[in-house]
């Protein structure tokens, strides 16, 4: 059995880079001990991706304010998912895309590779996990859904109306985005990153900008870090509308009958998966990248981190309603301090470098890592949507709920398909 190792024990006086990340190169045994450390709850798994001929893993320790990127120079490497289940889909995806080999991977079915890519066609059936028991039936749903939403497949096993298990199969909107970054210039990278998940385009672009600035040592002009807009008039209306929605919601028992105790995410699961955004905060995980690993302009504005503890649809809804109030507060403060100034700094000479950033999107933290080649072009860009760690929790949340409540649970998570399919 591998002994877990805490991130703090590995730091050993190292300093973080300009992006706040410490970069540490390790050998496979330490890598495995850190993976076991994730499982033991000593630190959070923030991202896991293949880069060049090796693997990278972003780990964070919120309590100590530590962020690291662990580098392992091996394509055959000890599987993280063997110790820590939240890494499973990430490892399956990287295996499909880059041919890396996580040794001991508990589930070797492909994830993004559906056997349709030219040159990699396969007739092999995708086997869903077996479910045994009396009176069970399966309901396959998707990839094309009934509403105006993204495609994905949901395999329900139900007993009567009650969902016994949900298994997701995603990857339908895999566009090969990561491969398009390779060799592209920084400007083209901005076009791509903003289209990985259209509903979080600002957060992605922001994280990418942070990462590129860190990689090049590009100084940020103060005004750059403040969103601009003629929005003051709208703020009041927004605040009023929010209160009205809250009033209606609070006075409708028939609505609450659907949401309260529906689709529960346990605090333990939210912690294990380091679930970001309202999915985590509604289950008591007090994490918001703007607070925990703060960045401008959020480090200078006042707002509260809103959490709930019940982890149900109701809690997620209420956290989001609360957050609208906080957002109105933030925008108000930013407008008060708006001042003229340059919005773009001189670009430094192109060169090699690495940078990473964690930016809070509406759905949770988006992680972006950028590596620049010596000619200043992009060598590797990886973006990890918050959905990677939220989708699996949806599988757990619908267990024991009725089939008809699945859309409610799904929408209360509001995960991105495109962002997680890459």
């Amino acid at each position, binding site marked *: 059995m591998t002994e877990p190792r805490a991130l703090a024990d590995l730091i050993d006086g190292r300093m973080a880079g300009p992006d706040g990340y410490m970069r540490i190169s390790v050998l496979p045994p330490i890598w495995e001990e850190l993976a076991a450390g994730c499982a033991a709850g000593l630190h959070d798994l923030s991202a896991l991706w293949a880069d060049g001929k090796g693997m990278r893993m972003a780990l964070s320790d919120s309590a100590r304010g530590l962020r690291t990127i662990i580098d392992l120079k091996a394509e055959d490497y000890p599987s993280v998912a063997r110790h820590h289940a939240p890494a499973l889909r990430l490892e399956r995806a990287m295996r499909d895309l880059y041919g890396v080999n996580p040794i001991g991977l508990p589930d070797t079915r492909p994830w993004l590779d559906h056997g349709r890519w030219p040159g990699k066609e396969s007739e092999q059936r995708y086997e869903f996990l077996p479910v045994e028991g009396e009176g069970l039936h399966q309901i396959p749903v998707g990839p*094309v859904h009934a509403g*105006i939403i*993204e*495609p994905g497949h949901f395999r329900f096993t139900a007993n009567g109306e009650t969902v016994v298990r949900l298994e997701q199969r995603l990857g339908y*909107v*895999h566009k090969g985005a990561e491969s398009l970054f390779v060799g592209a210039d920084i400007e083209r990278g901005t076009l791509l990153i903003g289209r990985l998940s259209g509903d979080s385009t600002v957060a992605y672009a922001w994280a990418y900008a942070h990462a590129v600035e860190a990689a090049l040592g590009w100084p940020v002009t103060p005004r750059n870090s403040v969103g601009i807009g003629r929005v003051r008039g709208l703020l009041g209306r927004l605040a009023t509308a929010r209160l009205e929605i809250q009033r209606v919601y609070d006075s409708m028992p028939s609505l609450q009958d659907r949401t309260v105790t529906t689709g529960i995410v346990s605090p333990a699961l939210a912690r294990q998966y380091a679930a970001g955004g309202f999915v985590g905060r509604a289950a008591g995980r007090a994490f918001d990248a703007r607070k925990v690993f703060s960045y401008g302009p959020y480090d200078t504005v006042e707002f509260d981190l809103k959490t709930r503890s019940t982890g149900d649809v109701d809690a997620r809804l209420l956290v989001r309603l609360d957050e609208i109030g906080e957002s109105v507060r933030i925008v108000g403060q930013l407008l008060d301090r708006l001042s003229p100034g340059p919005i773009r700094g001189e670009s430094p000479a192109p060169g090699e470098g690495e940078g990473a950033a964690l930016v809070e999107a509406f759905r949770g933290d988006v992680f972006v890592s950028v590596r620049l080649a010596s000619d200043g072009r992009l060598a590797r860009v990886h973006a990890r949507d918050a959905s990677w760690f939220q989708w699996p929790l949806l599988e757990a949340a619908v267990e024991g709920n009725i089939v008809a409540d699945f859309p409610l649970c799904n929408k209360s998570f509001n995960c991105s398909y495109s962002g997680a399919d890459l």
Partner: protein
Amino acid sequence: MRSFLRDAFLKGMATMAGPAPGAPELEEVARALGERARRRLGRSLSIREVDAGSCNGCELEIHAINNPVYDIERFGLKFVASPRHADVLLVTGPVTWNMREALLRTYNATPSPKWVVALGDCAANCGVFAGSPAVVGPLANIMPVDLHIRGCPPPPLDIVKGLLALIEAKG
């Protein structure tokens, strides 16, 4: 309960009476669209949306044409849950290899006469994803396309205008 009944009487409909005065263009287009749709197709035109690899930006704009500001259902245009109920397939995204089969099955499940609208730059020419090995190619290479609505993403008004153009051409 009593307060709801009271509100229902006092406040009336939550849906806007029509497009805001600032948007005469919308009013004109929407009315013309409604009349032509009725003449051509009786009372309604049913649309099935298929995301064939979109980043979900186009979906947000399509949602907008259903919101109270644009509210295209007033004019007999409605989104349906099954391709078997649809007259129009509204397709977004650069068509990924992983979605190709599901898209073709949806097309085959749609009864004739049917029209295909390619929505957004991705459906037209793969947009920023052109050249990716995971992408099949523009929608027109996979099925006959009757109309392209360009934009990344196209704003709601352009979507409404596009649907009008489709009905005019087919009418």
